[in-house]
């Protein structure tokens, strides 16, 4: 306590807000997704599933939830259990070992639920297409609603995708 607290307070005061100003909202989601997005009423609990990615996308997702991009301001929040989740952020090509867990994660999330495939690998297996351990793209295992291309996609792409779900 004491000096440490004061110095930290000083930092907080001097730095202030680090979040960047909100970019223009993205175009609304496709129809079927829009219906569910409306049901979510501007709040999206997010569960990340690494179906076999190189962790590049995880780093970007981490950035998206960090103070600078701050997707939480749009009502998205990471949760610890798929039971609590409305949105699954799936990254990487689905490996044989992760196919079943991914299916079960999808089952565990209560309706209405949204699946976002993050990164080229998730969209179309990218680099790893046809790899011996690869089951396929995320869409081959669970129904995908939104795709965020890029290797890795930039945080604001991820933020944009989540904003289309929360509609804020």
């Amino acid at each position: 306590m004491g000096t440490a607290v004061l110095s930290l307070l000083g930092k907080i005061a001097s730095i202030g807000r680090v979040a960047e100003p909100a970019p223009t909202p993205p175009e609304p989601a496709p129809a079927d997704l829009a219906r569910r997005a409306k049901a979510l009423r501007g709040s999206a609990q997010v569960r990340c599933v690494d179906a076999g990615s190189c962790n590049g996308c995880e780093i970007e997702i981490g950035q998206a939830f960090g103070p600078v991009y701050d997707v939480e301001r749009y009502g998205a929040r990471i949760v610890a259990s798929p039971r609590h989740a409305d949105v699954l952020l799936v990254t990487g090509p689905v490996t044989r070992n992760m196919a079943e867990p991914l299916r079960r994660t999808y089952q565990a999330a209560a309706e209405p639920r949204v699946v976002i495939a993050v990164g080229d690998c998730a969209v179309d297996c990218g680099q790893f297409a046809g790899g011996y351990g690869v089951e396929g793209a995320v869409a081959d295992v669970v129904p995908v609603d939104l795709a965020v291309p890029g290797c890795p996609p930039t945080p604001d792409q991820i933020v944009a995708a989540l904003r289309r779900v929360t509609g804020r």
Partner: protein
Amino acid sequence: MLAISLVQAFLVLFGAPLLVGWMRQLRSRLEGRVGAGMLQPWRDLVKLLRKAPQQPEGTGPAFRIAPLLGVACGGVAAAAIPLLSTRTGLGAGADLIAVVALLTLATAALALAGLDTGTAFGGMGASREMTITALAEPAVLTAVFALATRVGSTNLPAIVAATLNHGARLASPATLLAAVALGVVVLAETGRLPVDNPATHLELTMMHEAMVLEYSGPDLALIELGAAMRLTVLLGLWSALFAPWGIATGTSVAALAIALAALVAKTALLGALIAVGEVFMAKLRLFRVPELLAGSFLLAVLAVTASFFLA
């Protein structure tokens, strides 16, 4: 006055998520974020209530009743505590020990629900939560003892009214020590830092969160609402005991309006204190928590003795 009790209950019911939202908003501002706004918890609740209800295989009544019981106990406690006026409806039921017991009942029910799932995390959370609750009890009741002896009753309205009539008592060491002791317990019972981290996503460090991993949809909404109400009720109780300014002793509308403003201000202030404090605090190791609670028990004992050899 039954009306006052009902007002209090609904006040807490609707205000609790706002308090949580306020604390989260403050916290994210301190972290340099923009924050989701004070209404976010309500958005979450409404959404969860609309989601499809699920029942995990092999779970039974305990799992289904616990969320309801959490909210119900929170509401009854809110109705019993003199938040707005000392003339609450449950005059006889508004007993300090009874209120504490009610909140413990809700905790026990949730722990049973956690065990009912039969998953490792549910059991883990239940075991830890009950350990903390069990060890917090002595500090609570001894502090209650210290407060009750001067009034000669554990009836909450009586205690609050007595404090309102003798403001000087608030400055006495006994009250201060009891305040610190109960403050520590409130942190422990509401699962805030340094006892539990409400924002953790790592199962192995969870207590409260681990118990509710199986809940989803409306049940989860009730669980979160219950937790928020618990926090609000305990903060309201604390402020009623140690900062009762503004609480009406009658039932006149003007006095109640003032009391309402005072209540909002006090609760918001306490919430802000906790939120700011959590920025500077790390979670204690599970087996350091008993030390914390033993310390608060010691403070409570000091409060009892102090109420004899001082003031």
